[in-house]
């Protein structure tokens, strides 16, 4: 199929005013202060590409949060836990806007062609509502979001300019709650899961972990040929050796150990 270009728009008028009222911190950030004239064009293009990719990724994460939210309701998870998760799609949409505006601040988005029908891997529809939810929770939250917290914090600390610092700081604050939801759900659900269910959840988590490790190998290889650490960090993007080392440590402490502690027999 032909891809669709990843571009985004705002409705404006009262709809945007209501949105701004919900999240006033976005407009309070120091937009228009990032002068890219001192940076090589190649580095700026790379930063534009990273921030455009980040907007796409946050867009995918919003879809994953919405899909998981529906599943939480279908399996009748505790109402207050669902309410906590109900905020996440809006958080992710804010992050989409922040990353998009960072790309535009640096000169504009770069080209991403995508298939809107294939943005996340859904859980198998024939599974029970509880197991469908646990499958998505394992991949999207126990792996993806839990791992994000320490990595985002490190990236935030590495950013030197006030604008990317403000953007990353906002994302770090929001993600704190996202990173713990998965294990809160498992704490509630684990007694309801059979051994076979736990094996299924473990395989889902293993697939997420495999995808993470694949991503790191690609980052490591790519940074050798295209990443200038000094410029990259100045432009709000961290891909240093320290980042990758922290990622490996965090996978152990924030993902693998908490899953094993809850009796999810991961192998990855």
């Amino acid at each position: 199929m032909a891809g669709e270009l990843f571009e985004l728009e705002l409705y404006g008028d009262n709809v945007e005013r209501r949105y701004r009222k919900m999240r006033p911190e976005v407009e309070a950030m120091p937009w228009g202060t990032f002068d890219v004239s001192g940076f090589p064009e190649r580095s700026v293009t790379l930063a534009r590409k990273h921030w455009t990719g980040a907007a796409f990724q946050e867009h995918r994460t919003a879809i994953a949060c919405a899909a998981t939210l529906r599943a939480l309701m279908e399996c009748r998870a505790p109402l207050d836990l669902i309410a906590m998760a109900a905020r996440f799609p809006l958080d992710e949409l804010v992050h989409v806007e922040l990353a998009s505006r960072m790309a535009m601040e640096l000169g504009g988005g770069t080209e991403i062609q995508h298939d809107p029908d294939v943005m996340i891997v859904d859980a198998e529809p024939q599974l029970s509502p509880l197991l469908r939810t646990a499958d998505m929770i394992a991949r999207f939250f126990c792996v993806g979001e839990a791992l994000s917290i320490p990595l985002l914090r490190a990236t935030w600390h590495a950013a030197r300019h006030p604008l990317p610092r403000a953007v990353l700081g906002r994302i770090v604050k929001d993600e704190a709650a996202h990173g713990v939801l998965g294990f809160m759900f498992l704490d509630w659900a684990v007694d309801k899961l059979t051994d076979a269910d736990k094996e299924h959840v473990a395989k889902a988590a293993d697939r997420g972990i495999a995808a993470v490790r694949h991503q790191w190998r690609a980052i490591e290889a790519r940074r050798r040929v295209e990443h200038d650490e000094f410029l990259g960090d100045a432009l709000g993007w961290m891909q240093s050796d320290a980042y990758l080392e922290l990622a490996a440590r965090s996978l152990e402490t924030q993902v693998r150990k908490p899953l094993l502690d809850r009796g999810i027999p991961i192998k990855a």
Partner: protein
Amino acid sequence: MRKGGRKLLVASLGVAAVSYVACGEGTVANLLAPPLDGGVDAQSDVAGDAPPDIRMDAIIANLLPPPDAFSPFDLVANLVAPVQTDD
């Protein structure tokens, strides 16, 4: 009548192009970083050596990957976009 709409993200066509779209049998989407200097045809350097368990067309054909395989789209993690090809 809506008056206040505006673009939030506008893409520059051909700049650092990336495709997450399957192009049919035997083709995988190219998520490798393309050259940054000048226009890029994202389909031209299709990663034919990608491992079979992460072929994009397999993802398109079946959203539920085999139990022991993984898809880059199994994961959502903040800020870092999915990668397709093994390095």
